[in-house]
């Protein structure tokens, strides 16, 4: 069965979507990802969709759902590398993914995650020197 690999990098999980998403695959990813977040106690999830060319309302909603679920499991989700055409399509579909953070590429997404992580540590009093 087709599966999207979920890579663990330190405290973060990296998901690179390199095939066209169909509904079943999206649901599988949702299951796998939530399970993995719980198991690894990841603090952040980076979803790279730079190879994704086609989106529909289902995939759009699924991205929003994954972000919401990850937040419940105390992990921040950042969607990176969205193509212009995909962004326009989602906006036209009325899905502006309000709860999801975005970044232009993996590098920026990672620094955003690390920044957010550092802030949280400060809040918890762990990051103080």
């Amino acid at each position, binding site marked *: 069965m087709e599966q999207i690999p979920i890579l663990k990098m330190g405290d973060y999980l990296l998901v690179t979507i390199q095939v066209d998403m169909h509904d079943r695959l999206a649901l599988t990813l949702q299951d796998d990802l939530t399970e993995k977040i719980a198991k690894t106690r990841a603090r952040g999830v980076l979803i790279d969709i730079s190879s994704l060319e086609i989106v529909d309302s289902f995939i759009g909603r699924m991205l929003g759902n994954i972000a919401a679920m990850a937040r419940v499991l105390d992990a921040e989700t950042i*969607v*990176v590398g969205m193509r*212009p055409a995909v962004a*326009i399509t989602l*906006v036209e579909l009325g899905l502006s993914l309000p709860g999801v953070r*975005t*970044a232009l*590429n993996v590098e920026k997404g990672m620094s955003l995650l690390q920044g957010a992580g550092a802030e949280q540590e400060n809040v918890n009093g762990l990051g103080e020197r």
Partner: protein
Amino acid sequence: MDSNGKSRIPEMIARNESELLANWLREQLAATTLRGDLMKESELREQSRQFLNMVVRAASQQPGLDNISAPAWEEAREFLAGISRSRAHQGFSPSETATFVFSLKQPLFSLLRKELEGDPRKLADEMWVATALLDKLGLFTTEAYQKGREEVIVRQQQELLELSTPVVVLWEGVLALPLIGTLDSARTQVVMESLLQKIVETGAGIAIIDITGVPTVDTLVAQHLLKTVSAARLMGADCIISGIRPQIAQTIVHLGVNLTDVITKSSLADAFAVALRRSRMEITRAVNHG
């Protein structure tokens, strides 16, 4: 028409082609709508000769003079459309263009009268056939003229669209999009596409949309702006809207448009300052070492 109802006009024209052409040209050159400044007489002569030739050829085939959309008239139609289009581009008015066909009426009627002198009934029938034919050709000319003009307008619109949406790089990672003129759906689409494309190319994290040059902001324009902002955000870039004039601020509030999720600034300079702060940069006055 003869006994089997067929018009004799094609045969008459073919027999008297050169005389008809001469009369027609005289008619055209005498017409008040002649534009000697836009077109040389020799060109007009050549066009008239060719067209009459095509009419003779088309009229002699099936189904004759009744139906100018038939394949037999294809050549004549294309020729006429070409003339109309080129005249539309040259700046002829519609009536000046249509005169080309309508001025053929008088010479053709004279010809009919001379040929059918002894037979009033047939003359009336043939007159009707000729009028119907020339009217159809005339209308066709006008339509082709109109189409030519519309092509010009569409091309100009496209050029304007491309000219009116520049995306400029203000600073490393900061883009500016000065909008000038009314925003409609088509333009928003172009604006959005060029902005997103530029974000990908430059890797910019902040885009400033300046609407100083947008005359009015109604709900539709506001919605278009918000769409652009959302799309940029999905790509990972923040948007700042600047250049909101006092009247526009009032309109936005009166219309109940929700701009609370977007950073708005009154001038491009303010927006730029915010953008610099966001990207953790600052501008300082140079210390004079001299």
